[in-house]
């Protein structure tokens, strides 16, 4: 027993000795600390092929920081003094200039001189041609978006000379620039990518999924990527524009939100992404942290499947629209980091109007509409919420109690993310929460096409012949006046018909250390550009 005791004592003493012997706090050399930005992110990147990327946020943000494309969003100073990357105005990115000719049937793009890829190879019209040939051959998402803007195939992209490329547009429209100003149009280095094109993988998709070396054209290069651990940006020495202010950006994967919060508060990371909303509210009072809050035009709504009873009856949809606790959801679930959505076309998008929105929380009115719909004694519905999203679960709870006062019994059905997405894609969900849709092109008809055109994607199966016709007629059109009138008409129909329950537009929140500057919002894609950021 003496031995046991002695062993225990020895163990304890040894452990403490070991800990105390270790040199305390050996954090990085102070000299380069201001040249490195450390960001705690919630998850890893997945698939970096620009034309067929995975849709997770950090993959797309990385693509936006390491690649460049021809047309980009223009930086404009707003009335409040904030600079943003305007979603409605475009400048040349890799292009020095661009102009529509032939009545909008041609887009002539002139490249900047002496452009280079990150390995020093020249970036010229041939690289542009290579990029678009591959994109149309591969025929994935970006090809579909190009065709949507009536750039139909590889023959539509012509090399005029080493610095000039012509894009043929089969039908003049307003979508072209918005659809081109994104990561899918990243210009790739043929010298680097072509050797990876094989018979089994003709588009080098496999290689581009996890590699970017030598083909980057943006302000940063992807210096390293350890899956599950971190990925690191370094300055691209061959970038044409002003060099990134901060030399290195380290993205550490820290899956737990409370750990990310602790790291931000202790100053061990400069930026913590995806914090819990309540923590963000609390950080508003933390002197060492800046909470950037940006309104968005991300659309969050409740979908009701218009092909299944009882939601096939517009009166039922209207009744629910009168029973939903809008303010409670914004203040309790979204802790105030959201504003009321008042139309299928969100505030911040051209042609938006809130003049048709008349719903508020009025159980009596809901009951009356239910009676008119043939449910004088109320009815029962099942609501599907996402088990992996806190706001979705919160909404389910408040919805259940509010709808009960109008005589509607809600059964909550929880689904995991993957299963939810699958059911959503099959248009199988009867009553569900769409947490956020963002149209990267700030064009009302682009937006309405994806959400309300019944032969496209319209997850709610809402069908209205007039709406369909107006979208089809105006999506490819340059008649802004007609588009404006049509958009208003669609908004009125969709609101009166209660196509959705219009919930909110969430704010985009970014919590950074006090010493971090240069946070610029791009309201088109809501991805942060780290190359503007500064660290004092």
């Amino acid at each position, binding site marked *: *027993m*003496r*031995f*046991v*005791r002695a062993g*225990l004592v020895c*163990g304890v003493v040894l452990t403490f000795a070991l*800990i105390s012997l*270790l*040199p*305390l*706090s*050996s*954090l*990085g050399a102070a000299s380069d600390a201001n040249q*490195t930005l*450390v960001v*705690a992110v919630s*998850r*890893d990147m*997945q*698939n970096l092929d620009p034309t067929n990327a*995975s*849709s997770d946020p950090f993959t797309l943000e990385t693509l936006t920081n390491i690649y460049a494309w021809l047309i980009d969003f223009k930086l404009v100073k707003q009335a409040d003094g904030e600079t943003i990357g305007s979603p409605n105005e475009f400048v040349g990115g890799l292009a020095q200039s661009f102009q529509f000719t032939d009545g909008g049937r041609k887009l002539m793009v002139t490249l900047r001189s002496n452009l280079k890829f990150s390995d020093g190879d020249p970036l010229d019209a041939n690289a542009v041609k290579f990029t678009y040939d591959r994109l149309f051959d591969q*025929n*994935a*998402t970006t090809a*579909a*978006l190009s065709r949507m803007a009536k750039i139909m195939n590889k023959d539509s992209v012509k090399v005029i000379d080493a610095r000039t490329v012509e894009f043929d547009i089969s039908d003049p429209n307003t979508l072209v620039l918005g659809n081109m100003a994104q990561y899918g149009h990243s210009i790739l280095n043929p010298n680097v990518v072509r050797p990876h094109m094989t018979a089994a993988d003709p588009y080098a998709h496999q290689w581009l*999924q996890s590699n970017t070396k030598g083909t980057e054209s943006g302000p940063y290069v992807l210096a390293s990527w*350890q*899956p*599950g*651990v*971190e990925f690191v940006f370094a300055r691209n020495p061959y970038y044409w524009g002003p060099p990134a202010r901060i030399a290195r950006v*380290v993205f*550490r*994967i*820290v*899956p*737990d939100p*409370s*750990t990310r919060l*602790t*790291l931000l*508060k202790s100053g*061990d*990371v400069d930026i913590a992404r995806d914090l819990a909303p309540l923590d963000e509210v609390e950080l508003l009072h933390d002197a060492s942290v800046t909470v950037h809050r940006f309104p968005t035009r991300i659309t969050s709504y409740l979908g009701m499947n218009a092909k299944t009873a009882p939601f096939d009856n517009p009166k039922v949809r209207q009744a629910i629209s009168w029973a939903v606790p809008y303010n409670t959801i914004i203040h309790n679930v979204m802790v105030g980091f959201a504003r009321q959505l008042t139309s299928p076309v969100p505030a911040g998008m051209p042609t938006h109007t809130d003049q048709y929105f008349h719903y508020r929380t009025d159980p009596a009115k809901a009951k009356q509409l239910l009676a008119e719909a043939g449910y004088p004694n109320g009815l029962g519905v099942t609501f599907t919420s996402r088990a992996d999203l806190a706001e979705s679960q919160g909404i389910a709870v408040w919805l259940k109690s509010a709808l009960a006062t109008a005589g509607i019994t809600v059964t909550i059905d929880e*689904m*995991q*993310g*993957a*299963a*939810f*997405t*699958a*059911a959503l*894609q099959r248009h199988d969900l009867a009553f569900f929460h769409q947490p956020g849709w963002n149209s990267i092109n700030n064009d009302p008809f682009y937006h309405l096409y*994806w959400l309300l055109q019944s032969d496209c*994607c319209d997850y709610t199966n809402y069908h209205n012949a007039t709406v369909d016709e107006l979208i089809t007629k105006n999506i490819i059109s340059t008649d802004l006046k007609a588009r404006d009138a049509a958009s208003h008409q669609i908004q009125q129909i969709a609101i009166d018909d209660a196509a959705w329950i219009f919930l909110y537009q969430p704010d985009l929140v970014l919590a950074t250390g006090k010493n971090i500057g240069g946070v610029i919002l791009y309201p088109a894609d809501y991805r942060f550009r780290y190359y503007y950021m500064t660290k004092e």
Partner: protein
Amino acid sequence: MLAVPVLLGVTLITFVLTRVLPGSPIDAIAGPMATPAQRQALLVQYGLNRPLWVQYVAYLGGLAHGDLGSSFVTSHPVASDLAAFFPATMELTTWAIIVAVLVGVPLGVWGAVRQGSWIDHLTRVLSVAGVGLPVFWVSLVLIYLCFYRWHLVPPPMGRLSPEITPPPSVTGFLVIDTALAGDWRAFSDAVRQLILPVAVLAFAAVAPLARMTRTSMLDVLGSAHTRATRALGLPPRSVVWTYAFRNAILPVLTMLAIVYGFLLGGSVLVETLFAWPGMGRYAFNAISGNDYPAVQGFILYATGVYLAIFVAVDVVSALLDPRIET
């Protein structure tokens, strides 16, 4: 030799179960804007349009060549992914088990020898706490106190702090690799990053080990042969350690194997809270993304780990107890 049918059975069960899960990996790959034609093309590309049994045979064929397939999500080969994530879990778990044994077994022995003493009560309280307190709560409290308040340990950001360059990989154990490389700054960082997660896992593992040791020791100490050794006037130290402990160790060894195997499967919570890039998180991500090859690869790995540990325990038991015949 039972290993082969066990492994085959496991591949079949996981293969069927992953396919039965709601949702499809195509949803994660294709994104919300994909057209039905693109989704169909992806199904063909990943071979998911073939009949299930054809897919299963193709999978087994790959396995026979040591090919676990490639992740649908990242397109990395699953085998290399497992190899990348395994060392993190292996190192964390091994240190935790060593600490748990060093603490749990002596506590159990002591508790049995001095039944009813304060150390016996302490052991019981520790065991109840180790089993009863949720791992995530203990982790959060330790992070708050040891890191945020007292700055005793570096920020919980994984195996090494961001500014430390990892050493060349030799064993996969960063503590050993950094020492081999002679990089003492990295060594100290690796050790200090390990302290909290090892403490949390060891805390949970101490309970079953201490209780099993105590029960087993009590059995043996109360047995006739121990009474005989006492009656013969052998010194207490030799009664406890030479005669009783050696006889009591077998069930403890089995418990150790179960706990070790369980921890090697990866503790999702601890790995998540400490940003530890280990197997638990890998498996969690694979399951939530319906990444069939990754899930299958992980379960095969976990089965292999259990089999290997139980084989090792059988061998050690045979060495300790000559009555067991192999």
